[in-house]
């Protein structure tokens, strides 16, 4: 009885904040609910007939849950925090809207995960990866990993754990847990020649010795083995084999599962999206989805909003937004751009330093931009920290007149579009708030809709 009344209150708040036009009103109802009744989230989650699935990771949680929603939404009413409100308040808001849903699919911020797991016993939990990301906000990777391990230890036996076996920080979490599912890439042809500079977890979680990598795929994700204590990547239950990357067009691979193997054509680019597809497939497999439905969902994927979007802007020109928020993600964006038939000669790179971007911009120096610097003949550096970014390119070997510094985003976009030939594609690599601002500019020009209008 009390619950219903609180829901009414909180929903009123949501309607109010949406009406005041503050962009979605996605977390306020949850905040109000948490204030009114701390146990409500637990009860709201428990009433869903098919339970709750949770996806957490530093990189790719939004895309992974969008892919899983594509698969799980078939024949089911799903409630899903697609707006990216992934802290406890966003989770609470999403569950407030879950009346009549069969299942909830929740993307959860990696730092907020332990707090969410204290309130919700998920039916399945994806632990995607832990990368160095915005150290100014979260403290260091190791303390986050410790908090995750502690949270996993007290999970009920009924929760099916879905773990990226290629992440050495997470790989052994599935060991000894009945019903857990491991996933990873199994294609040495896609391995990088060596661990990249930005790789985070090069040392054994058990004994501290440096890992030997039979294959390093994305950052520290790969086929690792500790030469000293034998800690090694666990066997893969869900895997991608025979991967082919096709620039910005997408990726093809053989999806290997305990239920069989099937070729998949994924319309999202880059090996990092292959990992996201594997995470979604492994999750849905753990939730008893048949293989054909996994493949159909992955092949019909739409890019998660702002992560990878191609927007027509007139003159036959396209603006392609590739969100970049940390070194591992930036390295993959660079690799994806260079894996296409025509690597870009021009790019707009935008660096902001607001809280959502990370206030510490030092991560740009840990990105391997050099392959892009080698093929591009012009880069436009923009955002609040445009000069800092331009210094990165200059000290990385780019000629002084090949780097243009235009801090104002709209001006930079116009300058870069002017440099783009008719019919050409402008690649834009923005941080989070720069992506939001650029998208707002494109929306104001009528090229794209704001996301809260798009639903």
């Amino acid at each position, binding site marked *: 009885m009390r619950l219903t009344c609180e829901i009414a209150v909180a929903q009123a708040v949501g309607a109010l904040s949406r009406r005041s036009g503050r962009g979605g009103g996605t977390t306020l109802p949850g905040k109000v609910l948490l204030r009114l009744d701390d146990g409500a989230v637990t009860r709201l989650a428990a009433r869903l007939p098919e339970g709750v699935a949770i996806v957490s990771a530093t990189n790719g949680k939004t895309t992974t849950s969008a892919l899983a929603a594509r698969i799980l939404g078939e024949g089911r009413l799903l409630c899903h925090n697609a707006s990216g409100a992934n802290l406890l308040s966003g989770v609470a808001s999403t569950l407030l809207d879950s009346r009549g849903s069969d299942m909830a699919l929740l993307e959860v911020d990696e730092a907020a995960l332990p707090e969410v797991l204290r309130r919700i016993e998920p039916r399945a939990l994806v632990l995607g990866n832990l990368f160095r990301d915005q150290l100014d906000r979260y403290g*260091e990777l190791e303390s986050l990993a410790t908090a995750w391990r502690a949270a996993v230890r007290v999970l009920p036996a009924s929760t099916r754990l879905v773990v990226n076996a290629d992440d050495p920080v997470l790989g052994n979490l599935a060991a000894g847990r009945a019903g857990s599912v491991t996933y990873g890439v199994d294609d040495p042809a896609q391995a990088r020649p060596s661990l990249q500079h930005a790789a985070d977890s090069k040392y054994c979680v058990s004994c501290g010795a440096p890992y030997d990598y039979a294959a390093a795929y994305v950052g520290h994700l790969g086929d690792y083995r500790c030469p000293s204590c034998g800690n090694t990547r666990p066997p893969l239950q869900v895997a991608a084999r025979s991967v082919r990357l096709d620039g910005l067009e997408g990726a093809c691979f053989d999806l290997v599962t305990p239920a069989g193997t099937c070729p998949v054509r994924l319309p999202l680019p880059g090996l990092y999206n292959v990992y996201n597809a594997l995470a979604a497939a492994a999750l849905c497999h753990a939730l008893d989805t048949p293989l054909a439905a996994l493949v159909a969902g992955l092949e019909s994927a739409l890019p998660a909003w702002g992560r990878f979007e191609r927007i027509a802007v007139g003159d036959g020109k396209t603006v392609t937004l590739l969100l970049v928020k940390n070194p591992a993600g930036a390295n993959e964006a660079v690799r994806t751009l260079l894996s296409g038939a025509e690597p870009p000669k021009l790019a707009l790179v935008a660096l902001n330093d607001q809280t959502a971007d990370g206030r510490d911009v030092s991560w740009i120096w840990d990105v391997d931009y050099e392959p892009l610097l080698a093929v591009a003949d012009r880069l436009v550096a923009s955002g609040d920290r445009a000069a800092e970014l331009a210094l990165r390119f200059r000290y990385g070997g780019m000629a002084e007149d090949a780097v243009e510094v235009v801090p104002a985003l709209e001006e930079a976009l116009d300058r870069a579009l002017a440099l783009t030939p008719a019919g050409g594609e402008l690649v834009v690599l923005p941080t989070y708030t720069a992506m939001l601002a650029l998208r707002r500019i494109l929306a104001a020009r009528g090229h794209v809709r704001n996301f809260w209008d798009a639903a």
Partner: protein
Amino acid sequence: MKLVLGHLYPEYLNIYADRGNIAVLTQRAAWRGIEVEVLAIGLGDAVPARADLLYVGGGQDREQALVAPDMAAKAEGLRSSLDAGAALLAVCGGYQLLGRSYVDAAGALLPGAGILPLHTEAGRRRLIGDVLLECELEPGSPRTLAGFENHAGRTLLDEGALPLGRVLAGFGNDGQSGFEGCRLGRALGTYLHGPLLPRNPWLADWLIAEALARQNGGVPPQLAPLGDALESAAHDVAARRARERGGRF
């Protein structure tokens, strides 16, 4: 002229863009026609006598713990290198490890190299944010340094020890003293990353010149000026950030 840059533990201490500091030292020397050789100095390696400039970066707790005993074992090599006129820059974790000791959150005392006159104790809250310092490495010509800090350690300088600078905005060594970093002759330690040198090129040039002094009769050579418009612009934004939001929890 040729500059030999010894980079300590590049495999372990390389967080917070230490690579950026190395790139700036290398490029700014190269732009003046000074050849640079970068030597990696790893676990178990001796500190080479021919290194003119030593660099130690930062790492996450795990990496730092892996390196600490080796750093303590290198103390004698480091000291003789500095006595022979080498310059040194240590950032974040490297700065702490060069001190006498570090008391971690559990109260355990870890010995350091004892090169810099300071010791560090873990505090409860991390000191995180933009920083602006005023430094006077050459008496009478104050300069500013803009950077970013992120440290749990509270570093306490010994009586009479020189800080690198005075905190204009930010936390600094311990959030209380008003001082940041430590200077011992040609050796500098600091919490400022970001990285430090791209937006503070005068400090990069100071280090290069001090490192070359021993090849120039003990006097730091005059380096040809570079344009540095972009560097100044980056410095100004970082300095403004520190004034707006530095030194706050």
